């Protein structure tokens, strides 16, 4: 009996040694980085301010003068289904296609592993939208980067701000203005324009210390107009905080698609 006990101990020891060996033989597991780039297009043309584009679906032409939006709550999904969520205070980003420093997100300290998808929100979640100002990250400071992206009378962030001119607009100066936001209401339900987008990589992307893959997303501004709802400037030259905004949110969610991944 005693012998049997010793034997089983020996086997257990051997087994655990085995497991250890297996781990040791794997590639060194160090945290890595991931870059996410936002490339803005209008159909097949590069997006630019003060340049005229035509929407082939509606025939309307438009000249953007401003485009800015918030993306947040990035989570990275591993091959095994587990997720890595960025630390809350570093998980809010303002994207501005005219500012080179605001078209790229660098995810630092990403646990090593094989990733197959990302998920993020276009907008700012309700929790952060209603937090004490002192607890919000600088990117959401109404006197900082979030200036002009904040409604003070009905406090909350403008998730997507898109302005320009169009001969089809009946507004004075032929302007169009889309200020889309609304996190669902503080204590009375109201419009919710938070939209979540999941991008599948179609392959497993390795993240490891010396390996910094870069994800190129294409943001096709045409889809702002052409989606489940066809937004016509002639019909809706100005949309701000009103119920039609949710239809535009359904559209802008589809703007983001994966173009390619640089595996470093």
């Amino acid at each position: 009996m005693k012998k049997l006990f010793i034997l089983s101990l020996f086997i257990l020891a051997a087994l655990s040694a085995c497991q250890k060996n297996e781990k040791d033989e794997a590639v060194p597991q160090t945290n890595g980085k991931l870059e996410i780039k936002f490339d803005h297009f209008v159909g097949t043309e590069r997006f630019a301010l003060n340049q005229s584009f035509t929407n082939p679906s509606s025939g309307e032409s438009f000249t953007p003068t401003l485009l800015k939006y918030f993306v947040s709550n990035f989570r990275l999904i591993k091959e095994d289904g587990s997720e890595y969520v960025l630390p809350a205070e570093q998980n809010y980003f303002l994207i501005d296609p005219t500012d080179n420093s605001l078209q790229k997100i660098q995810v630092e300290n990403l646990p090593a592993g094989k990733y197959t998808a990302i998920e993020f929100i276009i907008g700012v979640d309700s929790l952060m939208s209603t937090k004490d100002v002192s607890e919000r990250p600088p990117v959401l400071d109404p006197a900082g980067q979030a200036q002009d992206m904040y409604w003070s009378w009905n406090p909350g962030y403008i998730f997507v701000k898109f302005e320009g001119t169009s001969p089809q607009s009946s507004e004075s100066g032929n302007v169009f203005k889309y200020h889309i936001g609304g996190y669902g209401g503080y204590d009375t339900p109201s419009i919710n324009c938070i939209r979540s987008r999941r991008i599948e990589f179609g392959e497993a992307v390795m993240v490891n210390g010396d390996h910094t893959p870069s994800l190129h997303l294409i943001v096709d501004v045409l889809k702002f107009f052409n989606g489940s709802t066809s937004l016509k400037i002639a019909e809706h030259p100005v949309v701000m905080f009103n119920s039609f905004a949710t239809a535009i949110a359904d559209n802008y969610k589809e703007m983001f698609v994966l173009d390619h991944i640089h595996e470093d």
Partner: protein
Amino acid sequence: MKPAYIKQTRHLLLYLCLLACSACQQQVEEVPIQWQQPAHFPPPAYDFSRNPVTTAGFKLGKRLFYDTRLSRDNSISCGSCHIPTSAFTHHGHDLSHGIDDQLTLRNAPPVMNLAWHKEFGWDGGVFQLDLFAISPIEAHNEMDEKLSNVLEKLRADASYRQMFKAAFGSEEITTARFLMALAQFQLMAVSANSRYDRYLQGRDTLSLLEQEGLRIFQQKCADCHAGVLFTDLSYRNNGLAPRRVRIEGADSVDTGRYRITLQPSDLYKFKVPSLRNLRYTAPYMHDGRFRTLNEVLEHYNSGVQPSPTLDPRLQQSGRVGIPLNETEKEALLAFLETLNDESFVRDPRLSEF
């Protein structure tokens, strides 16, 4: 050569003056600011643990409240439309005036007992007192300034940097600190010392007419103008016919709470205002359309307009409004007078000068 006793008297006078002055200064400096819970009030809604009112924070908030640098052209301050002697309203203006004499959308509501409010403004859109100030600062027809610019102006002023240090421990002037200091000042605007308050505490009596007014009030008004705050803080349509207004340069109507929730059931609803200090806060209603309390009472008696969102309390037993005869009105007006709080509108801690 002057006689010695004249010289001595002079010295003595000078000394006395100095003593008096320093006593004054000491007196001003030595009264610490503390937020006090009135014994007969419910617990506050504001979370003071997050932003406790301190003497330095209050002083800073007070300076900010009366500082015209909060506006684009340094012309108006919060105190321009929220005048302490008018219980922090814009006395005599139906719609308050902003920068360049532009009309705003609504009548400036009093900065009063806000510690007990959960939402702010006539439509309750702002859900935290701290956040409120950004709205008038950035509204084009109010102060038309950028919050970031305001902070830049303050950062350039060494005396402000010192005050932020005294209040928050370092000279850093941030959005959160700026808003918290302003909130501290506003929180100190507590009106709880009217004759009615003293009556509730057994320290004063009401006349027979005032008591009759109180009885009618409890019967006909207190459902909405509830408790010691004289508001249940809800949003209601009290049957005022919507008026045309300009919103962002466009011809429109003020839809009230609907602007915030976009729920059709909230159309034309506004927050039930407190009835404290009505003597100082004319004109009345969200758009200041009534100059006198008589007109207000007559509105409830005969002017209420039916509409789908009209408050159910204003359409009972087959009629709209609240029937009030002249005797009842007189008694009600007498009672409402007991809600005026002279010590509040004359509080030297809150006044600009």
